[in-house]
């Protein structure tokens, strides 16, 4: 499929309380750059009081959904958003790079052997490919704090499970299609589980940054053995683990 980036962003109605501003139809760094650029422009405009009716905005792979007060004039806001989106340009990355520990032992990675076999690789080669990649956080969705990560090596692309699991353990690292992700919560899920992190990905008690990752961040998985995993998990549960120590540098 050839990616189509819209020359002018499309303004799509999402009911009487939201507009979706769409920059293209594919998962692609150039299109996502426009998404991040528009978010930056929204932040500036809202910060200077120019978008009083806007409640919040949600970046996705190829679009940004802008939520507003339905009692406001939707069409007038739409025109201003379209103009802002046309001029907002692109932003390469604006977040942090995180190095996040992951345990790849059999209990933490129930699908590792099968994925390796299906792709003609040894399990340690799968782990080397995963830990050798800089993933980009495209968006959060599905569950609070659930990051969709782009950049998966083609050698690890796999379809979803035909029979999704009823319960994916919390903090599982998973792949499906061209995406990698991490489950912050136990939930049903059809992605292939290749590891597990001891780090909490969503902490409701942290009101300023409840989700560890944000769109525009980068993630590098760092292999740890079971002993280190158990130790970190205990510290995270006791609240004595500082997630800032995972920050490698500005991306």
């Amino acid at each position: 499929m050839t990616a189509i980036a819209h020359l002018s962003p499309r303004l799509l109605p999402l009911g009487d309380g939201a507009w979706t501003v769409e920059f293209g139809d594919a998962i692609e760094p150039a299109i996502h750059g426009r998404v991040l650029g528009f978010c930056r422009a929204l932040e500036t405009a809202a910060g200077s009081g120019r978008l009083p009716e806007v409640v919040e905005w949600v970046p996705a792979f190829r679009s940004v959904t802008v939520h507003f007060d339905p009692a406001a004039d939707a069409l007038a806001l739409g025109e201003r958003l379209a103009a802002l989106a046309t001029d907002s340009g692109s932003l390469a990355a604006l977040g942090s790079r995180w190095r996040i520990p992951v345990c790849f032992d059999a209990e933490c990675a129930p699908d590792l052997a099968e994925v390796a076999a299906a792709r003609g690789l040894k399990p340690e080669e799968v782990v080397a490919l995963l830990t050798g990649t800089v993933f980009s956080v495209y968006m959060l969705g599905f569950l609070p704090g659930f990051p969709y990560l782009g950049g998966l090596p083609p050698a690890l692309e796999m379809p979803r499970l035909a029979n999704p699991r009823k319960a994916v353990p919390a903090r599982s690292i998973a792949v499906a299609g061209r995406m990698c992700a991490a489950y912050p919560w136990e939930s049903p899920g059809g992605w292939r589980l290749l590891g597990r992190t001891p780090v909490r990905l969503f902490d409701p008690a942290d009101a300023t940054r409840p989700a560890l990752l944000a769109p525009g961040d980068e993630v590098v998985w760092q292999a740890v053995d079971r002993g280190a995993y158990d130790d970190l998990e205990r510290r995270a549960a006791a609240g004595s683990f500082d997630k800032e120590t995972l920050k490698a540098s500005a991306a």
Partner: protein
Amino acid sequence: MNAVVEVIDGGTAVAVQDCGRTGYRSLGVPVSGAIDPFLMAAANALLGNAPDAAVLEVGLAGPALKALSGVLRISLAGNLGGQVVTSRGQARKIQPWQTATLLPGDTARIGANGGGVAYVGLSGGVDVPRQLGSRATYARAALGGIGGRYLAAGDRLACQVLSGDPWLESSGGSDWLEEEGALRVILGPQDDHFTAAALQDFLGRPWRVTRDMDRMGLRLEGHPLAHNQKGADIVSDGVVPGSIQVPANGQPIVLLADAQTSGGYPKIATVIRADLPRLAHLRPGEEIRFAAVDHAAARAALLRRTQTLALWVEGITTFRPPGVLDEGALYGGNLVSGAVRGDEPALYWNNPQGDCLACNHQPQC
């Protein structure tokens, strides 16, 4: 000052809700909140609460709440009734759209709701800690409410002690009016993923409500809607409560208050805010229709819905429950004020202990 109620019976699908959790959707956190915010506002208005004070949303059957300390007051909004049983076993009815005062030891037993959702308000609002700015319960991530879950026996809820006259109850003076007719939608954002015939069918044919419904969404069934060559998958983008997703099987799913923040199915249309709460009151087997409107019509409809609510709130009247002396009438010389009715258990006159109701149940008064 705090009053406290203990949950004796959690009922079925009862949870703390408020206006919802905005500001965190970019992190994948749904808004949640009351699935019928107008009814929630009515429950609060009966108590003189702020419109966004947290309430108990009753999905199926109401709870039993025992006042441990008080005096406090509850309200019922929606198709919901119940009774108050005092510590001495005397019972009196609580009518829908009314308030009822609870003294320490009184238990309010709320019945099953008559379909849809209904709300129980508490004086001053249900005071649970806010999480990410809201008290709204979101069960999938255990956020808000009490441990992010439905009410259970043994839970304790704080609210406010009544100030002022404890025996002046409130009652909705006019009927609660719901809009009728087709549910109004704004087409898009992916109406261009459907054939012309499918768009015509979506607006022209009836849709049957299935049993598959929760706070996240509602499945409809009817003549399947055909996607065009653009297909039934999109690169995931933002969704809202009211989004009508159509997966490959052509059967629509309307998302509700606990809608996830993004989705990968084409969305043919979105139900407007004025009509969204009506979805929460549909019963399996019922048939609905959709009608397309533009933004101006949606805005006018929301204004009208808000005005209808304001009129209802203006119509709230006060009354003395049966058995309570109407002091105003006494001072006015009308001793047969009708305050003591023969057909109801008389709260004051049947009170063998002779507790004084005017001083918050202090027997020594």
